[in-house]
């Protein structure tokens, strides 16, 4: 079987995670922000699989399953919120959500 150093795998995780974070910070459309969040969650999932395979434990995959459950629930509520938001304002731009201020 293959043998990739763990460091390389984790670097991939970090890269993916960073891409997600950049997306979240830079994009203004909430839908894209939601997708960026998915990328970050996925990166974390990859990290657990990596670690699990390194230690030869199935636990990593169990946590992976937990993570997709979390992601599914989060996406469910998130999309519902976006649908609701779309009815109130004409686009999903987060800058239009600026009526809250101090």
């Amino acid at each position: 079987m293959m043998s990739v150093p763990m460091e390389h795998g984790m670097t991939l995780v970090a890269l993916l995670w960073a891409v997600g974070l950049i997306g979240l910070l830079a994009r203004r459309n909430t839908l894209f922000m939601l997708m960026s969040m998915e990328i970050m969650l996925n990166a974390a999932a990859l990290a657990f699989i990596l670690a699990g395979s390194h230690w030869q434990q199935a636990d990593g995959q169990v946590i992976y399953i937990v993570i997709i459950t979390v992601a599914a629930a989060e996406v469910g509520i998130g999309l519902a919120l976006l649908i609701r938001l779309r009815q109130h304002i004409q686009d999903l731009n987060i800058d239009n959500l600026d009526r809250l201020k101090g």
Partner: protein
Amino acid sequence: MIAESLFYLSGAIALIASIMVITNKNAVHALLYLVVSLLALAMCFYLLGAPFAAALQIIVYAGAIMVLFVFALMLFNINSDDIKRESKWLQWQGWVGPALLVLVLLFEITYLLQFHPVWSAEPVQLIDARSVGTLLFGPYLLAVEIASFLLLAGLVGGYHLAKKMPDKDKQT
């Protein structure tokens, strides 16, 4: 050796696809890239000896969750105005700040990973669905139960938020 290159290749695909997701103007296109990224990650999982996770990634993530996104997109009814407005935002100026910040973080963690190696590269062993299942429905049984409650919360929350307000007189 082939397996290693395959891992790097699919990792690179996942990364590139993710970058495409966050830089895309069109939501549908972005979604497609997201699916590609997820599938590439599934490949990685497989190569890491986790075929079960890989299958789940394709079925649940790339399948079910993405379908949710597509449905929502249809409901949003995104038009060319939205895309135009968003493209205004996609100037390079908007990216510099966040990207720099995150790159610093990224640099730190990459530095740690590359120059403080703590793990030796060992050949990957297969962890099959059976062992995952045994664990999942053995010591982790409670986690499964709670995950079901988590999904219930997602369901109730999503249902409540997305449905129309009830008419007052119907409510009795």
